[in-house]
């Protein structure tokens, strides 16, 4: 269990953060730039001292202003992957990797980490000879080899371009799957969160707005301004239910229906998380027949919310009774009026197969990694 309850004044900015989260899987700290994400991680790591409060992990107090406990960073056993890598320029890759290892019995095997992160060919190089993506992989390996009980990752992809991001993401997923080390992952990019996170801590103006699962928080309307307006949508938990090799499609099952997506190289039954943006969903009042969209899902209108300008957001339930599954559709007010949409009404949600792109799929374990490899990185 991760327990954080701290206050810190930084110039004119007051940070007052309080949350508990299970120390398992990937816990995402999500919020806009300036929401205080990095400061929280620095306080966890012991690099920034809170004015007041308490930080504990699995029952061990790392900081407590009441008990006057403030463990120095080197005794907290938290791995830290910084946004900008922070590799030691005067050490080789091997020297960087082993800097935190040694003395203690390594809980993590050097060769295993090198193999997992694909660093074998880089070991004798200098950090200055590495690409951005390689640097970040070395930084991850270096943090792991110090045998931390928890890994802190502060926007590890922020300084990378899209292809490099795609290169790193599968490695982070493998960390969770293979090492079972809990990770606190800071990001302001919803795609990364959906793909990686199990628990979401939503930050706004220096405070915690909500803590919960990704599925739960992204479908909550009151959090919409924080989770992103134009990116607004629903996250649905599915499992791989079938493959259509002839047409290169896969079917994902959720309580109440199935989604067709591009082929996923995953065994049947693999859990996959799908994010569907509200603006990619269209509505029809009768089941359309002659239409190219392959995903036509019966839905019931739960709520209609006026958005900015000419748009409305329609909150739909596409689950079965007792097992609601939220889906959002964003349409124009005029369409809503002309279709005579009302709460409780039965409609059909339409989404194009292709709108489920790779970045909107998040899996557990090696699921998304297998997908990434299948798509050719």
């Amino acid at each position, binding site marked *: 269990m991760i327990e954080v309850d701290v206050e810190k004044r930084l110039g004119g900015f007051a940070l007052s953060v309080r949350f508990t989260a299970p120390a398992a899987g990937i816990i995402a700290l999500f919020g806009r730039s300036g929401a205080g994400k990095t400061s929280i991680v620095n306080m966890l790591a012991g690099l920034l001292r809170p004015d007041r409060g308490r930080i504990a992990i699995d029952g061990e107090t790392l900081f407590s202003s009441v008990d006057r406990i403030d463990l120095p960073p080197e005794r907290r056993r*938290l791995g830290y992957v910084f946004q900008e890598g922070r590799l030691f320029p005067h050490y080789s890759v091997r020297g960087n990797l082993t800097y935190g290892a040694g*003395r203690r019995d390594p809980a993590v095997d050097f060769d295993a980490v090198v193999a997992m992160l694909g660093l074998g060919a880089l070991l004798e190089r200098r950090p200055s000879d590495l690409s951005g993506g390689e640097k970040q992989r070395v930084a991850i390996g270096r943090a792991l080899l*110090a045998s931390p009980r928890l890994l802190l990752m502060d926007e590890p992809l922020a300084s990378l371009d899209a292809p490099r991001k795609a290169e790193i993401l599968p490695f982070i997923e493998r960390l969770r799957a293979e090492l079972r080390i809990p990770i606190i992952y800071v990001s302001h990019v919803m795609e990364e969160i959906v793909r990686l996170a199990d628990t979401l801590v939503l930050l706004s103006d220096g405070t915690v707005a909500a803590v919960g699962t990704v599925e739960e928080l992204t479908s909550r309307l009151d959090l919409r301004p924080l989770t992103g307006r134009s990116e607004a949508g629903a996250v649905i938990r599915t499992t791989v239910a079938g493959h259509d090799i002839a047409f290169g499609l896969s079917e994902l099952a959720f309580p109440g229906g199935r989604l067709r997506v591009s082929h996923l190289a995953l065994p049947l039954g693999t859990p996959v998380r799908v994010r569907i943006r509200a603006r990619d969903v269209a509505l029809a009042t009768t089941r359309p027949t002659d239409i190219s969209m392959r995903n036509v899902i019966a839905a019931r209108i739960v709520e209609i919310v006026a958005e900015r300008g000419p748009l409305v957001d329609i909150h739909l339930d596409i689950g079965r009774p007792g097992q609601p599954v939220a889906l959002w559709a964003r349409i124009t007010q005029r369409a809503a009026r002309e279709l005579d949409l009302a709460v409780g009404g039965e409609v059909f949600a339409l989404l194009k197969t292709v709108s489920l792109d790779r970045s909107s799929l998040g899996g557990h374990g090696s699921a998304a990694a297998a997908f990434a490899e299948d798509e050719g990185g």
Partner: protein
Amino acid sequence: MPELSPLEIEALRLSLRVGAWSVIASLPLGLAAAFLLARGRFPGKLLFDGLIHLPLVLPPVVVGFALLVLFGRHGPVGGFLYDRFGVSFAFNWKGAALASAVMGFPLMVRAMRLSLELVDRRLEQAARTLGAGRLRVFLTITLPLMAPGILTGIILAFARSISEFGATITFVSNIPGETRTLPLALYALTQVPGGDAAAWRLAALSVALAMAALVVSELTARRLGRRLQGLA
């Protein structure tokens, strides 16, 4: 090149010995002062900074006189050192080294301080999250990364030492074989009729020594710089 006379060899060896000892002795103190100035926050820091830089702007004779008063056999510091440890700085090569060290100290501290300010503290933080305590971070991260500045400081202080004249002659006089370094020997020659030719030779020797020090420092700094590239 014509062979050096015994007197020239004596002056050269003395200069090198005085320079080497003045640098070795002031290195730990210089490092400590550089740390205090670059990282420390304490009342009177400005005064401390000024005190360290004083030899740079004072007439060397004043420094020599101050050393004479403080470190002479009967001075408050010199007397204590002599009575307690039997160490004397008066009119011997150790006094010359002390005078050189004091004169070169500001140059050494400046170079080290500048390089220390350029060391990325975020790298030190990263090292600590990897389990390294303060001492290990200092030895494995801070010190290697400021190595070019330490080297520059050493070379500058050494060069200052082999060119030191005013403070040395005031403090420990001009004693052949004991305190008569190259500049003092050169000065002595200019004071006697017909010493010009010999003075020219010593001047050339001084130039050669200074150039050698600068070239070595430049080459080493470049090599270090290459090793540390990608500092960003």
